């Protein structure tokens, strides 16, 4: 047989394809996307406005509060940051889309800048580039799930919280100097930060009460992620010393997951996000290498190239490769951000792991090409 034979077989295989007319359907789909965005945007304006009124300044001390404990982070109160749930866009007829579609993509720059970009508008600088200085935004920053604050470490050994609306920053507690590994991680409701102290021991910091509670275990990984799983807060991290993925219950310290950080032929080097889907699946966005590649050090990673899922006590690769991902995990709800390069330009998409599908895709402004996706907030 010749090469032509292979080509013939492939072509013959398509002879029975029905040549349906798709132009009108494509035009309709294109217009629906536009209508959907406008409708959802209008609905969200109300949601976000309400959130702004009721949820403002939650991270800044107002009155003395209760002591810090895990229960704090798991019981959102009326004053907690707004955590919008799925809703039906009113007046839009067929459209049922969670409101988060209208959120903002967040990017970090190598010079410690932070940028927010909402499709349909120009990128907005939240923190200007400032090379040098104390801030270790590029290495350690994590934006709160509601997008109002960013927590990061400084070279002088402080855990710093900056209000993105006012630019006001305050130091929360001492951490060890040059702590580029122990990135502060938010609980899904955005009320608690998990961070190491000056001795490297892990604990929970409540920015409202300014109280720090040491945990009964140490997070031996650089970029932990907290999710709510079956009503229990879990912290996941890659332990680079043994190349394992660990999952530990915050309150009890019980190690629930301790598995090699490999799936199929891939080994995770770092984890950008952990998430729990509506049906309880635990998924992670990972940057990976080959099994024989350099072992992961669990250091800060932006995006990733693979999506792993915990199944029967091991990790499974969902074959999400060839993608650069940022990720969001607000509420552990399985929402994530993808970024991919097409035709020399980046696109970003919102994906919902509940539905196993994507929402809209947006062309990223060229000015963001050198920035790195950090996540998505709404």
């Amino acid at each position: 047989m010749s090469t032509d034979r292979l080509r013939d077989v492939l072509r013959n295989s398509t002879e029975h394809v029905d040549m349906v007319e798709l132009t009108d359907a494509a035009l309709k789909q294109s217009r629906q996307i536009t209508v959907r965005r406008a409708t959802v945007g209008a609905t969200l304006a109300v949601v976000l406005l309400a959130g702004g009124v009721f949820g403002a300044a939650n991270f800044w001390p107002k009155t003395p509060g209760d002591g810090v404990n895990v229960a704090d982070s798991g019981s959102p109160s009326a004053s907690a940051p707004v955590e919008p749930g799925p809703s039906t866009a009113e007046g839009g007829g067929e459209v049922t889309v969670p409101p988060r579609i209208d959120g903002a993509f967040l990017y970090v720059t190598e010079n410690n800048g932070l940028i927010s970009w909402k499709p349909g508008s120009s990128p907005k600088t939240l923190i200007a580039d400032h090379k040098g200085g104390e801030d270790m935004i590029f290495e350690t920053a994590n934006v709160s799930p509601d997008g109002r604050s960013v927590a990061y470490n400084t070279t002088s050994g402080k855990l710093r919280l900056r209000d993105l609306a006012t630019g006001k920053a305050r130091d929360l507690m001492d951490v060890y100097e040059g702590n580029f590994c122990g990135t502060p991680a938010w609980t899904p409701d955005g009320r608690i930060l998990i961070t190491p102290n000056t001795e490297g021991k892990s604990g929970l910091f409540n920015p409202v009460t300014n109280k720090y509670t040491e945990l009964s275990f140490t997070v031996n990984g650089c970029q932990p992620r907290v999710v709510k799983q079956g009503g229990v807060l879990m912290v996941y991290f890659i332990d680079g010393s043994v190349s394992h993925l660990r999952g530990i219950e915050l309150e009890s310290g019980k190690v629930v997951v301790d598995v090699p950080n490999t799936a199929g032929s891939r080994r995770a080097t770092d984890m950008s996000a952990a998430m729990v889907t509506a049906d309880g699946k635990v998924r992670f966005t990972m940057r990976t290498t080959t099994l024989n590649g350099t072992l992961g050090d669990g250091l800060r990673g932006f995006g990733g190239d693979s999506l792993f899922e915990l199944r029967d006590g091991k990790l499974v690769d969902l074959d999400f490769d060839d993608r650069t991902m940022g990720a969001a995990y607000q509420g552990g709800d399985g929402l994530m951000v993808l970024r991919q390069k097409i035709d020399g330009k980046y696109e970003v998409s919102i994906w919902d792991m509940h539905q196993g599908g994507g929402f809209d895709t947006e062309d990223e402004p060229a000015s963001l090409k050198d920035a790195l996706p950090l996540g998505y907030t709404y």
Partner: protein
Amino acid sequence: MPDIAAEFTEFARTHTPSLLRAAFLITGDQHLAEDLVQTALARTHRAWRRIEEGNAPAYTRKIMYHQQISWWRRRKVNEQLSETIADTPSRGDSAEDVALQLTVRKALLQLSKTQRAVVILRFFEDRDVAETAEILGCAQGTVKTHTFRALGHLRKALPELADAMKGNV
């Protein structure tokens, strides 16, 4: 002022057949192929003003391949693989040809999504390595690697085509 609707309509009607054929090979299913092409066309329409003249076919094709490489579409394909293959009608081919086509399509669907895209671009669309790399947004070396591995899989699945797949990396 260009009539975007008219321009796009003409473009879509001209290119839909070739897109559908490729999409069918990619997805292994008529309905998934239609869905894929429709989505690619819709996104092309949205970007129409920004696409340089003459680049629309390449843009749509890129969208289509990149869409397909998305994991969730692949899951759908896998879920529908068994019944899809069995239900596909044939038109006038010999039983041997039909069997071969089904075997080829089944073998294609067992490849990774990127490998499958590479095979279809290289051996169905007759794209060279550089063009394939450009469409998939990867390095030429990556295309060669995927081609090599894909053909290795196909050789095992399709010994009758083994000769045809030598030296085509």
